[in-house]
């Protein structure tokens, strides 16, 4: 009963706090650059502003373009239902839900991409082609890593997998495999969320963009949906990363939950640190990084087979 309530609370907390993660990342970057930075709650203000606005649709677009942000937001929100957080099982956990999870993210991406192609803009076409090429390489890393987790947990739902992760687990299936899978997930986390070194969320240069360029034509509430979906995706994938790398469990649900939130904040600060100290890799170098992540996950998987 307590767990069920905690799971619902996680849903609400995720929906509420996801935009804050971006605020923490931006604040970290501002501190590194010696700036004061935007308010922590800036994204909330942006979302409120965008929701009050009207949207402008180009005459060349069809219903696909309007459906894009909605379907993306819906898919990412549903994926939240199967993500465990801080030792709390997900509301919608069932065996094999990690496949659903991966493909909900794929649906979100698919609709972002065809909405971008629907505009007929050469910029958005380039962004779409990049997004598809790179996510095809990021997906194996995620799925191989999840397969390894499922193998060592002996269960096939994300919640089973993450329940079996313990801090200071130096057994044959803990320690190194978990570290490798965690590293692979961190890379996927950065790539899927369009962070440096894969993409630069701050740039204004369309020719260099991957994710941002696909949503250039969205405005008003549509843009709010896009931005909120991006924040939720950051939370969802972030929960998978901290669930492996910072699995603090005391047995007290409330305490674990607090630790989980703190771990998310640590992840956001770590992301900010990466973005402040690294330049973007050249676009041709992105596949190498993603393949490296797949290899890390693959080695982790191999180790769990012993």
């Amino acid at each position: 009963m307590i767990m069920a309530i905690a799971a619902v609370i996680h849903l609400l907390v995720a929906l509420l706090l996801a935009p804050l993660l971006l605020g923490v990342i931006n604040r970290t970057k501002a501190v590194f650059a010696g700036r004061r930075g935007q308010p922590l709650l800036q994204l909330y203000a942006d979302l409120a502003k965008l929701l009050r606005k009207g949207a402008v649709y180009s005459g060349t677009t069809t219903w696909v373009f309007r459906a894009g942000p909605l379907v993306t937001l819906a898919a990412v929100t549903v994926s939240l239902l199967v993500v465990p957080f801080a030792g709390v099982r997900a509301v919608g956990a069932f065996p094999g839900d990690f496949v659903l999870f991966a493909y909900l993210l794929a649906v979100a991406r698919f609709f972002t991409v065809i909405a971008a192609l629907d505009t007929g803009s050469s910029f958005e076409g380039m962004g779409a082609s990049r997004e598809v090429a790179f996510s095809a390489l990021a997906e194996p890393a995620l799925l191989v890593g999840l397969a390894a987790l499922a193998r060592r947990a002996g269960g096939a739902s994300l919640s089973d997998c993450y329940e079996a992760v313990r801090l200071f687990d130096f057994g044959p299936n803990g320690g190194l495999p978990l570290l490798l899978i965690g590293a692979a997930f961190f890379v996927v986390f950065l790539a899927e969320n369009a962070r440096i070194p894969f993409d630069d969320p701050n740039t204004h240069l369309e020719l260099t963009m991957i994710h941002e360029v696909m949503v250039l034509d969205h405005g008003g509430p549509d843009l709010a949906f896009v931005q909120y979906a991006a924040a939720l995706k950051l939370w969802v994938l972030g929960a998978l990363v901290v669930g492996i790398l910072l699995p603090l469990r005391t047995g007290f649900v409330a305490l674990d939950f607090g630790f989980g939130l703190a771990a998310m904040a640590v992840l956001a600060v770590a992301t900010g640190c990466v973005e402040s100290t690294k330049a973007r890799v050249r676009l041709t170098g992105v596949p190498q990084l993603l393949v490296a992540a797949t290899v890390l996950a693959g080695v982790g998987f191999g180790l769990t087979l012993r």
Partner: protein
Amino acid sequence: MSAHLGNGESIALGDLPVLSVAALRDEVIGGVARGRRLAAYFGAGRRGDALRVVAVVAGDDDGELLACAADVSGSYDALTPDCPQAHWFERELAEQWGVEPRGHPWLKPIRRIPDAFFRVDGEEVHEVAVGPVHAGVIEPGHFRFQCHGEEVLHLEIALGYQHRGVERALVGGPDRRTLAYMETLAGDTTIGHALAHALVREALGGGGAPPRALAIAGIALELERLANHIGDLGALAGDVGFLPTAAYCGRIRGDVLNATAQLCGNRFGRGLVRPYGLDHDVDDALREDLQRRLAAARQDFAVADRLLWDSPSVMARFEGTGLLSLDVCDEIGLVGPAARACGAERDVRQNHPHGIYRFVHIPICTWPTGDVFGRAHVRSIEVQRSFAFIQELLDSLPGGPVALERPAPPAADRLAVALVEGWRGEICHVALTGADGRFARYKVVDPSFHNWFGLALAMRGQQISDFPLCNKSFNLSYCGHDL
């Protein structure tokens, strides 16, 4: 066959040799083949049916400027097939005067939007159009890429959105507006263009600015170089998403601009340089203030600079991006840091020294790689050299006045040439006066005029996603080109 003159000198128009077109072709093509450069090539005005074209060829080894002219009517054999440096000049000539350089391989206007762009055929080739309205707050220009996937096969650059008709407005001067025009030819090169204009005026009228004015003008020119180079290094870091240097350099650039404002009341140096002197002097308090500000900026820059060069992720982006060989650089006549980054020893301050640079030397910085790394590296070294140069001058400012009390008016029927090494490269001003001592033609060649084509060539075979980085490494002026 050509008239010889030095930088900042003038000759009587009667002494300007008017050759046949064939002889002018020989002079220019032969000179360029021997390692000289075409610094300016323009129409000076009509005489009946014929157009008088003037060519100025700069010899970087001997510091000589060779000027010659020819009368062409209707059409003539283009220089470009034998001398690619004339490419842009001849397109401009055709655009401004309606003469046709026969055999020019790509004859279309440079300041009007073309009806058609060069197209690469093929099912998998796609075209990307960027601009004229850009995502950042920058000037307008149109870039048309022919791409195969992410690879750029060809880039054509269409400019002209900033055309103001400045050269035409200068005819009949000098008057009260002339200096205002000069200081806004390219807003980021205020000191450079004002200095070139002052040199032209002094060459036409005889005499020159007093020593103290030369020293302070040199300081101002190097301050302009500092501000822009530091800003560029920060922007290059920003384009690859490297936050620390981008943030620090943005601030340090501001510090240098503020130092310029202390000097003359304007951050971009407007209202400082005048023919025959300066409008502002430096007293002891100001000198100490400048020394203090620049010492702090120098220290801060050293930190930001080291961060940039010590980051492997940044170097991985800079190295091998936007390559230009020394051969191509010489062939198309690049100038400024872009040329020096290809290994060319091309710097007006050394090759054709004027003013203070005759007495205090500043070493040329070159780098052989010709990529974004090279262009950034040359800037970084030049920043250090400019800091040292300014410090040296501030420590030993000559005494005396900063301006002559009675500037001489321009003499009649003369031609004057002035070269100045602006931060972007060689600025060339050529003035011809009429019988009344007024400008009959005033030609401005901004360094961007030479270098835009270099950017187009540097993009060949590159990733289209690297274009913004490449573009920033040249950082060319749109309004300086369009005039």
